[in-house]
């Protein structure tokens, strides 16, 4: 740094110029309850279970590093007289989950029958055990209850028709808006 640079405080003006450029940039803020940001495709969020696809192999429970997936099943005779496994219990202790996604990796069915890439990050609840201890019913229906359209599970064929996709997206937005309105109505009560 030369003498002239020092007496003219060029570095200081450089710094001021950098912040000045940021000052005129529009803010990156997403104002959450009104606006939402779509997570990336690999975002690991809420669990989703497809009971029909699940073959009750319990690989996910075995693979889980902190053993928070609890699966019980029994055999039942189906119409053809063959044994079929039926789930008694499929619980996920979400409050201890670290969202590593190993259960999803371990699932042998195609498409996956348990997966986290639902792009849903609204995991809050009013009661501690409401959302943090998930049973079959909650795992399979939470998105329907919330009126969400989830992206396809990993392995599920993607819909190639773009028009349909667009329509779906529109529907999604509409549904989100409806949901917001519902929430607003619920709050005062």
């Amino acid at each position, binding site marked *: 740094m030369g003498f002239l640079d020092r007496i*003219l405080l060029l570095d200081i003006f450089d710094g001021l110029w950098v912040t000045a450029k940021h000052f005129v940039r529009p803010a990156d803020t997403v104002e959450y309850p009104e606006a939402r940001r779509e997570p990336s495709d690999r975002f690991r969020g809420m669990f989703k279970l497809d009971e029909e696809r699940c073959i009750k192999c319990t690989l996910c429970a075995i693979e889980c590093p902190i053993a928070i997936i609890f699966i019980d099943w029994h055999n039942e005779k189906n119409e053809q007289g063959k044994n079929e496994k039926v789930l008694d219990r499929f619980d996920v202790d979400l409050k201890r989950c670290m969202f590593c996604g190993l259960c999803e990796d371990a699932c042998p069915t195609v498409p996956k029958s348990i997966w986290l890439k639902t792009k849903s990050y609204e995991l809050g609840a009013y009661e501690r055990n409401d959302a943090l201890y998930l049973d079959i019913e909650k795992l399979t229906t939470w998105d329907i209850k919330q009126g969400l359209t989830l992206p396809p599970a990993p392995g599920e064929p993607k819909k190639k028709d773009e028009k349909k996709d667009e329509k779906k997206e529109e529907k999604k937005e509409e549904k989100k808006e409806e949901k917001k309105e519902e929430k607003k109505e619920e709050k005062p009560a």
Partner: protein
Amino acid sequence: MSDTILYNLVIPASKAVIVVLVIATVAGILTLVERRVLAQFQIRKGPNRVGWNGSLQWVADVIKLIFKEDVVPARAEKFIHFLAPILMMTPALTVYAFIPWGPETTFRVPGLGTIRTGLYATDVNVSLLLLVAITSVGVYGIILGGWASNSKYALLGGLRSAAQLISYEVPMGFAVVAAVLMSRSLSLVEIVERQKEYHVWFVFPGLIAFFLYFVSGVAETNRIPFDLPEAESELVAGFHTEYSGFRWAVFFLSEYANMVTISAVATVLFFGGWLRPFPNVGWLSFLDLVPPLAWFVLKVSAFLFVYMWFRGTFPRYRFDQLMALGWKWLIPLSIVNVLLVAFAALWSVAGLKVLAVLLWVFFGAALVVATRRQKRPAPTPAAAGVR
């Protein structure tokens, strides 16, 4: 109502009330403005929920602070702990008595007829001296507050501010002396009028003085990058660590009031106060459509924005760096500057203009040379301090 009572009691009293109210409000609003501006520098939005676009956030803050519990630490010096915020706020508000917001103006008040009065509470012929004297009393509030809190962080903050404010009072004083030499007056109103008379804003011959004044002003108001007395990351909140509720708000208010003071005095001394740009150039007279008060407010707000800009840009100085800057650079520079300006002013008004031309040509040329010489290479990791 007789004119004597009107001009000696009613008008000064109402001016005083208006000024205090306006400054208290402005300090409140400045907190909001600062948060919004800083947010913009950091590419976020800042508070925008209370009122229209967050415009009532400062009201909410004030209400919260008033109703908060006022904690006095155990074994604190209760009386001095109580006195310190008052000691800081009183001088911060008192100096507004001298700051000229505008020239003599004629008002038409229904029931009283026309009143001709200056847009300043009072014009003492040594107002600049008084102003400098009174602002430096404010440091007692900081030191005593730090001491009375019975907390090591507060004490350290108070000690730091004592050293810092006394050090930077010197270059600031010399910078003010330069302005006084140029205008040959200590009255703020006269200083502004001289700038019109001499056809030159004093920032032109007083470029160095202005730089010194503003840098010392940032240090005097404990603002980033010289906010060592409060140094969040080292001293929690420095001298006001142990303050809460309304007393903390008073400290905060006086800090912002001091900011406005420094900006206003810089405007008066170097940027022609309420004068429009180039007050003697005829073809620019359409600028007179903007009233003088608006020009003044505009200039002050520009300075306040620069304060926030600094805050959004610079990291804090280390304490020895701060002292080195003050004593090894600013004070010698200020003495040299006073000599320069003194000789120029001793010559005549023309001398000031010659000095102005010389200074601006010198710095312009230096800037051209420094930037043209070569594009400075990006710093290598070693040079940037990465190991």
